[in-house]
């Protein structure tokens, strides 16, 4: 039995606030992706470097990021570091947690993409007289990013959805945080959550379509 009268007008009045929250959500997801990509490239580099210590660090990062829940990672960024006197604001904790997660997954993405590029490419570059770093930067990395681009948009969508975990560390300005607050105030749970779900869907869809359009423009042969 579902005994509930929907009152959409009350929910629509709150739409501007929800959209403000959606902007914060998008901002965190984008920033976390940028940070994640930079770290992931560094991690991939560490793994390829042949240096034992660096590659162990990279492997541990990837293992932890991929095999523990994002909720745990975000919670640890806030309360875990907090126990050592390092106080991150909810915004920073959320960003750090998601960036950590993104970096782990993207590093695996990049590694897979690297495997798809034949060794002969590097060797061709080397035989043209390029130093190893230059061969990686000019020949391998552009191809790697191209192969990893669409899988990475997957991670972007995942990052958007992960921002909703910010409520566990006191985040109240993103879409999930504002939805929770509106819900607590009025108890109109189903309207606000339904609207938030639609907004999340639209953001995620827009990101996927934009990425596809971008890929179509950038990667034409």
């Amino acid at each position, binding site marked *: 039995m579902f005994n509930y009268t929907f009152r959409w007008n009350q929910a629509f009045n709150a739409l501007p606030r929800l959209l403000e929250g959606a902007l914060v959500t998008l901002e965190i997801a984008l920033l976390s992706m940028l940070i994640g990509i930079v770290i992931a490239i560094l991690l991939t580099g560490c793994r390829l470097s042949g240096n034992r210590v660096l590659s162990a660090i990279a492997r541990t990062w990837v293992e932890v990021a991929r095999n523990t829940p994002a909720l745990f990672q975000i919670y640890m960024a806030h*309360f875990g570091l907090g126990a050592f006197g390092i106080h991150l604001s*909810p915004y920073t904790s959320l960003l750090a947690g998601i960036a950590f997660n993104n970096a782990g997954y993207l590093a695996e993405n990049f590694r897979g993409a690297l495997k798809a590029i034949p060794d002969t490419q590097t060797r061709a570059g080397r035989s043209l007289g390029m130093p190893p770093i230059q061969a990686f930067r000019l020949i391998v990395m552009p191809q790697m990013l191209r192969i990893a681009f669409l899988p990475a948009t997957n991670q972007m969508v995942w990052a958007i959805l992960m921002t909703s975990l910010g409520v*566990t560390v006191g985040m109240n300005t993103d879409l999930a945080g504002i939805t929770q607050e509106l819900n607590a105030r009025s108890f109109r749970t189903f309207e606000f959550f339904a609207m938030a779900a639609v907004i999340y869907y639209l953001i995620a869809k827009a990101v996927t379509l934009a990425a596809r359009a971008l890929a179509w423009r950038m990667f034409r042969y």
Partner: protein
Amino acid sequence: MKTAVTAGLFAATCLTLPAHADALDDIISSGTLRCAVVLDFPPMGSRDESNTPIGFDVDYCNDLAAALGVEAEIVETPFPERIPALMSGRVDVGVASTSDTLERAKTVGMTIPYFAFQMAVTANDASGIKSFEDMKGKTVGATAGTYEAIALEAQVQEWGEGTFRPYQTQADVFLALSQGQLDATVSTSTVAQANVKTGNFPGISVVGQAPFDTDYVALFAMREEYGLLNFLNLFINQQVRTGRYAELYEKWVGGDLPDLTVGGTYR
């Protein structure tokens, strides 16, 4: 023939009656009263060492079930999930320290108050906060979805400086306070004292009262279930009348018994 018709009519009457059953009938005939209780909100609701639900709200639900002549079932419900739990039919009644705001009464049916909270300020000792006014400009927080969270957030907006952070559970609020992520929190004085007393959260103390209105809390049920709401109102009245309210208050909280009536008006 006549007997058969009478018997048939009689049977039909018996069979059609349950179709008009309301929530009160449903609870009595099912033999179980399912109460939404918040179990990270000591001393109102928590778990003992053997993981059994205990607290004022738990006892209150048990009393209510006894009055109805049914078994009590405690359904653990975090603050933000009280309404979904009721609306989706997982619980019959909320015994969950729910503030009876008008905004919420548009959605659920609220009884007369069954408990009343005073609000207290608890601060991290390092923050230098000694009173409610000292919280101005600091980082403060409270449990998301509670009366004090709504009031405190409004206060921070009115001050125009400082930050408000809602955490999902009372435990997280006190953890953040103890770590120094929050400078102070406003909670019900019962919760504040219970948490400071546990010793789980070092470096915090209750520093004073918060000048918010008394937080009257009500039981809640489906808005249209007048039969059940009437029963609940009378039950609350009887709890006070028979001294059971005072007894439970002494058992779980102690000190001056809060008055559940508002002078100068009817409910």
